[in-house]
């Protein structure tokens, strides 16, 4: 019963997040002073000055249809929500007409999820490992150095690391290519090597900043747990240090770190967007950027809606799984 109540409240938040996010995505463009359709028409007319008024009108009509700009605002809003929720239809991409936006997103999403998944996992493992060490051996010099380095790394945003890595490893010491190349099709070891090689810098920028936070929080957690009575008791019982760490300290420190992971999904995703753009990494971030540069509104709306949906879903999943992992948390 309690679980159902918990599930219910989480689902209400989840639905609310998505509806509010989509509403924002729908209304923000409509409150802007410039009309995207007129802007596009203006752009086209300035490129070719021999367009007949009838042709312009026809084009205006098609564009309005494609944007879902017909009817009253309420009709447009309901139509948009209906299309997106039931058919995930964001219309065709306007610059790569008639490829549906849905297809473009489908090819980019695995890239983003792969990059984020791998780099988040690596930084979580490395960071918590270092943090645990620095917390337990708190009097050692290396612990202080590690914590100091983490404090200097953590507050620096992802994209600054991305820029610094580009400067150092693509310009000053040119080990990596200036512009990443992911133009590979099909699966072969050669292609996989290209992908991994080109993903190293973007992944590294995400891993570095991510690691900083895990080191800082894990150091504090494990230091505090290490001073708890039950740990002292375990030591007095004569357990090996290894057993004390894996059986007594680790379980009590890892769980809060999983909660933090859930809370940070949104932030990590934000960071990944800019990193992708800076590295030309072919994920959702670059797709959003391409949409922006080419004024492809269907593409922008689609990618941003998907981003909100992905972050909300990931957060919900971690939230729901969490009580199964941590016996101390009951659904409330």
């Amino acid at each position, binding site marked *: 019963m309690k679980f159902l109540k918990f599930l219910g409240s989480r689902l209400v938040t989840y639905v609310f997040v998505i509806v509010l996010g989509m509403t*924002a995505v729908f209304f923000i463009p409509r409150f802007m002073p*410039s009309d995207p359709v007129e802007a596009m028409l203006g752009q086209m007319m300035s490129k070719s000055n021999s367009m007949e008024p009838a042709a312009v009108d026809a084009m205006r009509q098609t564009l309005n249809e494609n944007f879902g700009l017909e009817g009253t605002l309420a009709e447009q809003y309901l139509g948009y929500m209906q299309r997106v929720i039931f058919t995930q239809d964001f219309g065709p991409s306007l610059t790569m007409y008639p490829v549906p936006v849905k297809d473009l997103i489908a090819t980019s999403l695995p890239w983003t999820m792969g990059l984020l998944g791998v780099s988040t996992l690596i930084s979580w493992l490395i960071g918590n490992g270092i943090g645990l060490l620095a917390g337990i051996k708190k009097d050692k010099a290396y612990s202080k150095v590690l914590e100091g380095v983490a404090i200097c790394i953590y507050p620096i945003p992802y994209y600054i690391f991305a820029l610094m890595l580009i400067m150092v490893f693509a310009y000053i010491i040119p080990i990596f290519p200036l512009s990443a190349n992911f133009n590979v099709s099909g699966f072969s070891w050669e292609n996989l090597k290209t992908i991994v090689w080109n993903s190293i810098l973007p992944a590294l920028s995400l891993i570095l900043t991510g690691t900083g936070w895990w080191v800082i929080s894990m150091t504090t957690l494990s230091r505090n747990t290490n001073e708890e009575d039950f740990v002292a008791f375990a030591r007095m019982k004569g357990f090996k240090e290894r057993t004390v760490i894996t059986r007594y300290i680790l379980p009590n420190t890892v769980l809060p770190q999983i909660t933090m992971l859930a809370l940070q999904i949104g932030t990590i995703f934000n960071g990944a967007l800019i990193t992708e753009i800076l590295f030309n990494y072919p994920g959702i971030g670059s797709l959003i950027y391409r949409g922006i540069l080419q004024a492809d509104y269907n593409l922008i709306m689609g990618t941003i809606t998907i981003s909100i949906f992905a972050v909300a879903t990931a957060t919900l999943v971690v939230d729901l799984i969490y009580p199964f992992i941590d016996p101390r948390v009951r659904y409330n």
Partner: protein
Amino acid sequence: MKHWNFRLKLGVVILLVFAVLGFVLPIFHTGNVTEWNTYPNNLKPSMEHFLGTNSLGQDIFWLLCSSIQNSFLIGLFVAVLATAIGVLVGLAAGLQGGIADRIIMLLADTFIVIPSLPILILLGSLTKGTASLFLIGGVLVVFNWPWPARQVRSMSLTIRESDFISTARFSGESTFRILYKEIFPFVKDWSIGNFINTVLVAIGAESGLAVIGMSSNSNATLGTMIYWANQHQAMLGGKWLWIGAPVVAICLIFIGLFLFMTGQQQYSALRRGK
């Protein structure tokens, strides 16, 4: 000063240096720092141009100072509003309870989960990099009030049940006085930490947006400075001061803010212990 820990001291020193760079030095500089071709292009650092000039003919040092100023102003603007709204809403929700509390917390949870950057990018793309810094600051406020609101609410829930509040209420104190005299002191230390963190988050968000050209491109901020340097191939041309100066400044400012924040928390924790 005597009880200040190392982090707090170092943080304050770093922030003071940047406060001087951003708010004191620009008083001595006249002229528009963002105007192109004010000086000859690509001069080497000299006594006249401390960091040289860039290929747009701007003085890098003065551009940097003014960027620091604008970035800080955005951070402070967002932090002041978000903290004030968050603390007030959180106190109200916690003390009022009931349906108002539920609705406010549902809203707060929603804004915490929605990724803010895509929404900001959408805004930036629609205004084509000409959004005013106020608009961007305003949107950042919308995304940053929920954190203090949530925290302050749970604090005030705890405090509401404590004896000294009942005593105050029964002795006929007004709700406002109870809020101000009895509850606020508890919330204050936490709010300072949150305030600094929001400055950090806001500067970070605006710079990130600016780096990809989606902020306010015509205004000098640390992010737009990087954007223009990138646009003009500063890395390819080896103009490291142009792109390096804002990058180093952002790093140092963030480290300074973070040290100040954690140092302040240690400091107030110690003081509470006395």
